[in-house]
């Protein structure tokens, strides 16, 4: 019986010219989203590649220079384009693209791509994910709002039931039809995005399996979301007497759950857990840094000094050996302060990212009213464009900064004996400074960090599907 219902539903949809026009519009929007995403991300990928090469060339061409001056000039850590950013750019345009790995300071990532975009672009996210999140529910609503209500209006519902078809079979048949059409659009979008990503990542080492698993994960969660929308649409269509009312209620729900709540949740989360103003952040940082400064005669400072010297010479040294070493004390002081300050920077940035996490948790709380919020979190996480991915990059960049500054300070410690002349490292020295090789966190980490969001979407999908079939158990007025 189900097969007959599905076949009948498909035939009706194919024969309905409006549905075909609708599919055409949705397909066109998805293609536009894809082209926009591909064009933006491939340009960005190329720019990052060129900038990295240029930065290495400039750094290596410094000539003879004092290592501490070089630590101020330092290197840049460029953030590569995320694995699936052509599908869902997430927050990548709203966080910086490059970190200046300067001595003494842990800088935030700078140059947010969105600052160069038009202000109109902020009205709506026109990426493939943005279009899917906005338009797929609308497509499902338009396909399904009259599924049961119209049958009832036309009196055919009673006929179908009296012919021996159970309500449950009818709902299942309609569910499968609407769901599979929407799912086909999802498959089309995600497969195209994956192929596109292969082109964007031609020059990178993104493994193919990672891309495949990300595609499957995205398909899975978007599929769950589509199941929720389909079940809810059929549920409303089944309990409302007129198709027009069903459409109005569903559009009202779409406006609230898809258009309004995700925006409002972000705004409310920012009010509940406000992000710091830059001036506040740096003032607080200055205070913490100065409070943490150690007296050079303190035991803690002396111990840190010892660690720095032993690390520079790559071996354990006795007290007398240290005393007899011809080392640059300024270099030691610089490295000790780097080590001490680094703790403060790490703590301050951890607090900043903790605040972002609190904002995310708050939005997650509001996703009990709209699974769209949780889906957005999942989509960004699996695309590698969420705040967690940025935090990973920021921490890796800091690790690189510590590495570079240490190499430069040790060059100063070992080679500058502290005579009157300012030590200049030879021109070939700069090439020995390690390169920043960044790899995005594995998908597994994204899954681990998004467990709660996944269960929210799953719960919504299960709850709505169970609700729909519960109606089918004879609780429906025919």
């Amino acid at each position, binding site marked *: 019986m189900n097969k007959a219902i599905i076949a009948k539903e498909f035939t009706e949809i194919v024969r309905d010219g409006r549905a075909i026009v609708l599919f055409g519009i949705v397909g066109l929007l998805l293609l536009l989203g894809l082209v926009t995403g591909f064009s933006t991300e491939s340009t960005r990928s190329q720019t990052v590649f060129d900038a990295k090469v240029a930065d290495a060339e400039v750094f290596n061409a410094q000539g003879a220079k004092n290592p501490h001056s070089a630590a101020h000039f330092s290197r840049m850590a460029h953030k590569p384009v995320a694995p699936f950013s052509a599908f869902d750019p997430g927050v990548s345009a709203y966080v910086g693209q490059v970190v200046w790995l300067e001595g003494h300071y842990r*800088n935030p990532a700078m140059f947010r791509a969105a600052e*160069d975009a038009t202000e109109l672009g902020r*009205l709506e996210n026109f990426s493939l994910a943005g279009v899917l999140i906005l338009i797929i529910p*609308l497509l499902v609503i338009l396909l399904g709002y009259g599924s049961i209500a119209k049958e009832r209006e036309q009196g055919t519902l009673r006929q179908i039931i009296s012919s021996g078809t159970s309500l449950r079979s009818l709902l299942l048949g309609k569910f499968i039809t609407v769901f599979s059409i929407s799912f086909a659009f999802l498959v089309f979008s995600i497969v195209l995005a994956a192929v596109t990503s292969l082109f964007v990542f031609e020059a990178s080492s993104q493994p193919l399996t990672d891309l495949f698993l990300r595609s499957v994960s995205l398909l899975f969660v978007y599929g769950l979301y589509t199941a929720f929308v389909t079940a809810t649409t059929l549920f409303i269509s089944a309990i409302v007497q007129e198709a027009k009312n069903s459409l109005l209620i569903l559009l009202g729900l779409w406006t609230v759950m898809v258009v309004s709540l995700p925006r409002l949740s972000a705004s409310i989360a920012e009010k509940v857990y406000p992000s710091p103003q830059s001036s506040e952040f740096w003032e607080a940082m200055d205070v913490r840094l100065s409070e943490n400064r150690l007296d050079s005669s303190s035991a803690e400072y002396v111990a840190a000094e010892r660690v720095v010297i032993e690390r520079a010479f790559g071996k354990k040294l006795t007290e007398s050996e240290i005393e007899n070493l011809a080392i640059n004390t300024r270099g030691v002081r610089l490295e000790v302060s780097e080590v001490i300050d680094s703790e403060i920077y790490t703590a301050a940035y951890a607090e900043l990212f903790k605040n972002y996490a609190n904002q995310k948790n708050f939005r997650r709380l509001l996703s009990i009213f709209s699974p769209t919020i949780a889906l957005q979190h999942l989509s960004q996480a699996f695309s590698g464009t969420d705040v967690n991915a940025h935090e990973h990059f920021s921490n890796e960049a800091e690790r690189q900064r510590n590495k570079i500054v240490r190499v430069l300070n040790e060059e100063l410690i070992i080679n500058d004996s502290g005579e009157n002349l300012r030590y200049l490292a030879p021109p070939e020295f700069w090439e020995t400074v390690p390169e920043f090789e960044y790899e995005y966190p594995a998908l597994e980490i994204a899954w681990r960090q998004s467990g709660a969001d996944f269960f929210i979407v799953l719960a919504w999908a299960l709850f709505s599907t169970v609700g729909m079939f519960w109606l089918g158990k004879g609780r429906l007025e025919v």
Partner: protein
Amino acid sequence: MNAFDFMRYEWKLQFSSRAVFLVFLVFVSTLIYGGFAGKAERDARNAAIENHYRSVSTTMDSWLEDLRTLEQDDGSIDLPSLTGSAMDVIFASSLPQEPLSDFSIGQSDLLPFFGEISLKNPNIRLFSKYEFADPIGLALGNFDISKAVLLFLPLILIIFSFDVTSADRDSKRLGLILLQGINLRNFFWRRILFRALIVIGVTCASAFAVMIYNAAGVTSDGRFAIFVVWMTFVVFYGAFWSVLIAVIASFNRSGEFNVLTLLGFWVGLTLIVPATSSSLAESLYPTPSRLTYLAEAREVENETRLSEPDVVNEFMLDHPELLVDLESQFPDYVSSAFLVTSTVDEATGPIISSFEEALGRREELLDVFKYFSPTIAVHSLFNEVTGTSGRRHNSYIMQARAFKANYAQLVGPNVMGKKPISAEFFENVPDFGFKEEPLGMRLGRGLKPIVFLLLIGLGLTMITNRQLMKISPVSS
């Protein structure tokens, strides 16, 4: 049925549906929340600006005190070696908040609105280390009352008015109504007008309440006048959508048809046209990448350092009057830093120019799209009247750069000559002040599309009237 009876009937008709009432309530709550969210953002910006001026003032007071001590010093007081250096001078700068800035957050959450101006930083780092706002909030666009109006006012109007005649048509009552000799045009337009008035009226009343409430603690100069301008655009926007609804409804099709068509218009005009036009503008006129700008700046910085003696010679040739103080306590790196930043700024000037040129071309292209979508036209005007447009922020950044360049020119000889500036000289250097483009000019740019859309609205009204004349008791 007199006007009062009509209004009572309509009121009952609209709010008898709990779903419609609920949606309306959600809309009003969204407007009020948007107002509060805008106020919170504005207050945070004002506090940040105040804090910034206080901090710069403290630093400069101390710097000036040292300089005065140096000027009176007989050599007995131990002062920092850089006392009086023009390189250590920092200026506070900010983009003043317009009286109605709480009504639209615009680009103010994304672009810099305050920052120190110092010769130590080349233009590329003039506004740096400020990117701490919640990225998700930025990506979804911070919520304010203007956004609530742009996105949701049309939807509420659609929900209230799509069935202006279709409800009667679908229930086969329309023919009976017409048989009673009712003038359909009057009946139709009275209904549209009444329903639009309820929605637009409540929107304006909510906005007025927000305007009064949010006025606490800020200067109210011009706030009311700007609010009236803002409200005029709201009325225009609401009226345009009402006319669009009327024209669709006048085709006398089913309620479902009306809702679906209007929804299509809403998705097209408020989401798709703005998003595609923005993507198109960015693709056709890409701004130079900031990463390229940075790479160029670093390359010039490196080259300048490597050829510093030549650059110094060039500067000396340009300033034959310059005498270097050989006794100066100022370390060499001060003048070296000055040379590097000046050279980097000069060398990267063309990149900034092409950036501005690309922005200008984008604006021109987007101006064309304002004729296609009332959302684009009104969105831009909202940001212009509230002073939160990207254009105003970019103007602030350009003015800050120009201020720095002027100051560099003023004190360059002192820095290169390793001489301090005098306290008197410092006090005569004017502070940074943002030169505002008059509101009239800002509005002028966006008014042509509004006039065009008004004419379109007029045309749609005429089409509606013609369509209404085709409806007869038999056809309905």
